[in-house]
């Protein structure tokens, strides 16, 4: 196998695994912790709260954790978890969301999420908002997160937006 084809193969494997950033994403260098497939939940005009979901990828050999988040979208931003006990859904702030070494933490509906309270405006589909994420070890990142109604594969328009939006851009 030539050097060139090895490189091509590595590139293909990386693409398949989704580790190569989409064209246009800047300074996504596969180090620290990155946010992928992030989205903010669209809310009714008079809603007081919303949430953001994402995959946090830790490229480092040491475990890390999301400690806090902030966004101009809301006056208060916290990190929360939902737990179910005997059919009862409890939601509560957490101190940290652990991201394993060279692993991923999934923030998704019904689980860990970034919670926006006292919204300054209702996020609507098509908009994006910056969300700053602070970690225990990795440098802080700010991601531009698109607003969507939902992130199920049922909605192809939204999936399209999700894969091509600025959801994984790092500033």
């Amino acid at each position, binding site marked *: 196998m030539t050097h060139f084809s090895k490189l091509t193969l590595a590139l293909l494997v990386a693409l398949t695994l989704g580790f190569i950033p989409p064209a246009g994403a800047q300074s996504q260098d596969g180090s620290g912790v990155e946010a992928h497939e992030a989205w903010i939940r669209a809310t009714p005009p008079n809603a007081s709260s919303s949430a953001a979901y994402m995959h946090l990828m830790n490229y480092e050999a040491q475990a890390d954790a999301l400690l806090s988040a902030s966004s101009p979208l809301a006056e208060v931003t916290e990190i929360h978890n939902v737990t179910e006990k005997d059919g*009862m859904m409890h939601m509560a*702030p957490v101190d940290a969301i652990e991201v394993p070494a060279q692993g991923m933490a999934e923030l998704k509906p*019904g689980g860990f999420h970034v919670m926006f*309270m006292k919204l300054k405006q209702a996020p609507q589909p098509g908009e994006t908002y910056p969300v700053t994420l602070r970690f225990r070890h990795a440098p802080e990142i700010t991601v531009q997160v698109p607003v969507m109604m939902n992130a199920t594969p049922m909605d192809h328009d939204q999936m399209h937006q999700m894969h091509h939006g600025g959801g994984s851009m790092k500033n």
Partner: protein
Amino acid sequence: MRTFIVMLAFLFLTSSAQAELKEYGSMGGDFTLPSSLDRPVSLSEFRGQVVILFFGYTACPDICPTTMVRVQQALKELDPDVEAQVQPLFISVDPERDTPEQLQGYVTYFHPRFIGLTGSLDELKAVARQYGAFFAKDTRTETAAGYLVAHSGYVYLLDGEGELRGLYRQDAEPEEMADDITTLAEDL
């Protein structure tokens, strides 16, 4: 004896064909609550329609909108004729903050015919008890922006007689709800 077996078999076959959707006995039942329509709404108004309902609150950032979107998707899956026969209802478990006006702006964002219901704490607790739902203002958790409400996350499906015929957990697919709505609509 043979006739008896044939009769048994016949009973079994007909009952299994009809029992495609469960019945829940005494669970469920009528209620009348102040609503986002600016007048009290009774469940009995929707006889002859399929009713899909769940409990939640508008300040809920995760579970309730997730359920809202699942109900919205289930309704989108339906034939327009069937969809027109479905009444979606959202019952608030946060009477302190969810006024009828607050509910109106919230529920109609997800579906134009959605009706939001609220009431006194006692009224809402009574309805929740009828449906085996529960909720409690979460006094243990403080957030920087006020209190949270812990609540059960089921979606309920009622037939044209107002009888409970479907109960769905958080992980139920919208397609499953849509299929059951279509089955119930056939009997209207």
